């Protein structure tokens, strides 16, 4: 599936016009922790997240993420959009919640490209 089709499924809007929407997408991952993205998302994945700051784009760039979707209709800061523009990573916003966006994409045949973060217990704090 191309990013273009992907966007129509989640009723999304592209925020950076220079982005290449012809890239092929095979799966997704959803996370709000950037370290989780860096640790567990495979390359060529679409990232769904609730985070809006420029670090999302930096993280996407480091982890070779194909496109970033901001859920719950949030509008990211201008710096985030500018960075996405410079790095040519499609930045998409969708009015859908995380649960619905993931559900619809899963139904459309996209697979999960989140690997387990193995061998590590995560005590929170």
């Amino acid at each position, binding site marked *: 599936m191309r990013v273009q089709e992907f966007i129509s499924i989640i009723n999304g809007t592209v925020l950076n*016009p220079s982005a290449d929407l012809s890239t092929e997408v095979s799966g997704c991952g959803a996370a709000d*922790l950037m370290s989780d993205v860096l640790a567990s998302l495979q*390359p060529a994945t679409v990232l769904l997240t609730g*985070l809006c700051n420029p670090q999302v784009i930096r*993280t996407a760039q480091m982890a070779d993420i194909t496109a970033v979707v901001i859920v719950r209709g949030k509008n990211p800061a201008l710096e985030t959009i500018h960075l996405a523009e410079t790095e040519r990573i499609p930045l998409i916003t969708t009015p859908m919640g995380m649960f619905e966006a993931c559900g619809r994409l899963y139904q459309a045949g996209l697979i999960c490209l989140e690997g387990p973060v193995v061998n*590590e217990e995560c005590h929170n704090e």
Partner: protein
Amino acid sequence: MEQPKPPRSRIMTDKEAEHITRSEELAYELKVAEVMASNPVTVPPEMKMREALDIFRNHQISGAPVVENGQLTGIISIEDLIRSLIQSDTDAEIRGYMSINPHVVYADDPLIEALKTFVSTRVGRLPVVDRQGNLIGILTKGDITRGLLKALQSDYQTEEVRRYRASHLFEDIESERTSLILRYNIKAGDFAHGGSASSKIKRALTRMGASPQIARRCGIATYEAEMNLIIHTTDGGVIRVEIEPHQISVDVYDYGPGIKDVEEAMRPGYSTATEKVRELGFGAGMGLVNISRCVDLMKLESQFGKGTRLRMKLNVLSQDLGGESRKNDSGG
């Protein structure tokens, strides 16, 4: 420079729309002189329409500026020729059919000016003059499209050339042991630029011909380390990357405050990050763990009150089959 962008529908095709923003930038960067056709075919006003038809046919053009005593006096196009043909009036002089006082563009105008004129006047071609008013070229919409596509292509080639040069660096320079050192100063608390050094490191590696896997692993490891400098240090720190054909060594150091208990800091989930940092999606206590998963060798030394030094190494194999999966231990 003016704000409004040219209306897309009239100028760009779908194919070009993929590059639309770069095209728009180029419309401001490129000058009319760079894309126009120089030394245009001109005709005198006393020439007969019939003769103009022959000239158009021979030169495969559909319009020409009319010049009298070195001065641009009008423009004659294929439409004017058709009018004269319909009226069986091809023996008439061009003077009677040409458009007078044609719109012109200046050679040193940015392309966007010409685009605006095309859109507002709907003419097919614009004579190009210098600031003294001398005719030096002619510009059609086709010239603009060709000029933009050529510039986009050369952008692409510039990156290819950079990549080629960088990837041959080690072959071109002879020494017992050649390495390239990159240094980046990272400011404490500079969240706005968080990751820009790692981004440059990753790009440098890619240009030097590193495999996407190595570039990604090194990018992730330096990014986590860069964020640590921004989040935790009192005065920032330095990232130093040494690139050699067989390995990449990264040295990240700072002058404080240092880590109280290094062993504890390495434990997954351990974090001292503030709420602000957590809002950015960091501070879950996974940074060092992530780093150790991405590199082949990692050494963290710290003295509380003095500073921290993090050293990592990535082996570059000749065929470079490395991926994250190749990594095993969770550091220590």
